[in-house]
């Protein structure tokens, strides 16, 4: 008993004696990604992008007069509680200087409650408008908001494709809610009818009946709102098996190779959109894709890109601001400058939302998406 108590005390002493960070240390950036659980694929893609960005920055001599970037990863496991735990651990234990966290909207919202007014937080991928609508001065978002993306895409769907009636199915998530709200608005201004909206739970195993029901409405367009690759593949296979719809669309920013490949051709011709496309890339983007492919043996996807950009932007802003922890200064620097990324010139508005110059309408072709149309964002 005595021995055990002593051992416990010794362990405690070790915990307490964790040394504080020193000035010459590398700049630590906390990376919160889903590394296990159902969305671990996104975490893996994001990590490749982040590692590449850090390697490039360090190879070029680091930031703030030679300090290196060190990425500290924590797993959010695809659950809000774990996301919060990861952020807290990174902030208080690892004493990171910035947090890059944001794949799923609900989890990002939970995380942003912790980071608000305490640390620089960059959300690379989550889209829900509520995240940047909170008025957190040190919160930034690399991806477009759901409403920005959806407005362009939904306008394209209703005006360019002009279906008579749209049937919608999507998982009951915050992302889905935001997209649906926008769809109702845009469709309401047009002559297009919303035939039916089916919202399913994440535990749903089969979609045949939902699709049967949607088909029975006579809608000529199906629009699927789902961000999980495996389920996306499954849904499109089942839509195909029931004969498909004359027009088929999938929500913005959620169609990756990881969904198209397991769909085994069932997604061919599906219309979607994103802020990134590999096809026809030129300039910085082409070079980014080449480097990434060479280093990792696989082509980058949107997730790899936005996480790469997040690391680059954070490092760039710290360097320019001349500080790694004056968040007001770094945030002003972020808003007051234009950042060069593979996508082109990126700037941030008062809400911390990034504006990228281009938006692409995609059509699934083979094992990837092909370019259908390019929009310039005003």
């Amino acid at each position, binding site marked *: 008993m005595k021995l055990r108590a002593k051992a416990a005390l010794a362990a405690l002493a070790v915990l307490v004696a964790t040394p504080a960070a020193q000035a010459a240390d590398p700049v630590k950036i906390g990376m919160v990604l889903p590394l296990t659980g159902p969305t671990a694929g996104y975490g893996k893609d994001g990590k490749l992008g982040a590692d590449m960005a850090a390697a490039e920055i360090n190879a070029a001599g680091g930031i703030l007069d030679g300090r290196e970037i060190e990425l500290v990863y924590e*797993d959010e496991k695809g659950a*809000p509680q774990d996301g919060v735990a990861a952020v807290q651990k990174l902030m208080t234990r690892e004493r990171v200087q910035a947090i890059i966290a944001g794949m799923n909207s*609900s989890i990002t919202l939970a995380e942003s409650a912790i980071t608000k007014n305490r640390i620089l937080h960059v959300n690379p991928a989550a889209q829900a408008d509520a995240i940047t609508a909170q008025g957190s001065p040190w919160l930034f978002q690399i991806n477009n908001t759901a409403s920005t993306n959806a407005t362009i895409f939904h306008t394209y769907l209703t005006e360019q494709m002009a279906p008579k009636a749209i049937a919608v199915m999507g998982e009951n998530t915050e992302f889905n809610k935001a997209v649906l709200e926008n769809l109702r608005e845009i469709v309401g201004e047009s002559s297009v009818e919303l035939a039916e909206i089916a919202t399913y739970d994440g535990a749903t195993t089969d979609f045949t009946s939902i699709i049967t029901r949607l088909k029975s409405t006579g809608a000529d367009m199906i629009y699927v709102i789902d961000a999980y690759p495996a389920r996306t593949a499954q849904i499109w296979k089942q839509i195909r098996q029931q004969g498909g719809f004359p027009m088929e669309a999938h929500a913005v920013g959620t169609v990756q190779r990881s969904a198209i490949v397991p769909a085994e051709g069932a997604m061919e011709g599906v219309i979607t959109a994103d802020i990134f496309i590999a096809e026809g890339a030129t300039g910085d983007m082409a070079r980014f894709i080449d480097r990434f492919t060479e280093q990792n043996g696989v082509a980058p996807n949107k997730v790899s890109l936005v996480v790469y950009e997040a690391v680059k932007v954070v490092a760039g802003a710290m360097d320019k601001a001349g500080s790694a922890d004056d968040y007001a200064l770094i945030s002003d620097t972020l808003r007051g400058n234009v950042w060069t990324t593979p996508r082109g010139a990126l700037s941030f508005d008062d809400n911390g939302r990034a504006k990228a110059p281009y938006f692409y309408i995609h059509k699934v072709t083979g094992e990837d998406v092909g370019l259908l149309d390019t929009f310039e964002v005003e």
Partner: protein
Amino acid sequence: MTDITTGAPAGRARGGSASLKGAGLLALGIAAALAAGFGLGGDPFLLNLAGYTCGFAIFALSVNVMLGGLGEVPLGHCMFYGIGAYAPAMAMNHAGLPYEAGVAIGMVVAALIAAPIGWLTLHLTGAYFSIVSWGLSGVAMVTALNLDVTGGPLGLFGFSRLAVGPFDLSRPQTYFFVAAAILLAVLVVLYHVRGSRFGRAMEAIRQGPHLARSLGIDVFRERLKALVLSAPIAALAGALSLPYTQIVTPEVMSVLRTVDALLAALIGGVGLIFGPAVGAVIFTILPQFLDLDPNVKVLVFSLLIILVMVAAPGGLHQLWKAAAARLSHARKGDAP
């Protein structure tokens, strides 16, 4: 008794419950909490985590009222935890009530809901009870996902002030001390319950419902009492998670949470009054210090759990007891 099919002991060994021992352990617990609180003073992350761990330990204790007390596996207990987390969140965000009022409402609601649920499910035992209670928590989760007052899939966040009286729970140290104090209070309550008539009735039921019936115990009523007792404790635990998570989402009612608490109780020892609390500490704090790839960590942790269960199906305390028995044998000089 020995089970004839394998020759293995049929009943699980139960820890001693001599009152002296219990009181001593309680004092030790208080000392440990104080030492830990001041010791961790410099590390807000660990303090926050320790606060959350106290809440989780309370949940494990609540689960153990069913597990160690009745011998049932309440897979759906996360429902009460969820009610406890949602109630203060809704009270603060929708009604402008203070956190404490929300916590109290949550505990009352949990107890009120536990009664009809118990009436529905407690006629069942064993796997039937476990899986049906799991199903009910699934229904609760779907409900939280589809309602507006619960914030739907997004959940509720942005709470005004998480405080108990003058104690501001957003300060890690305060959060830890308040949570630890509540944990100790729950331990004291459960300790007294165990020694009461009701506690002895539960013990009789656990050993065999037929035996209990022959002793004149109304088995169903005592089982119902156990559920109604444990539900508000689970709700209290859920409420205590808010300062740590800062958000409530439907995911709070995931069965994984109950499984975690079951693991904590089983690893710490279901027969010991403080076993689940010890298990909770092992379970939440230990993985933070395993510096491994997250998937390797899951693999290692799962294998450790399996190893413990293979070596000591009654939990870690069985190993301690075996070691203690061997020691005392050695001291006496006779072979074990």
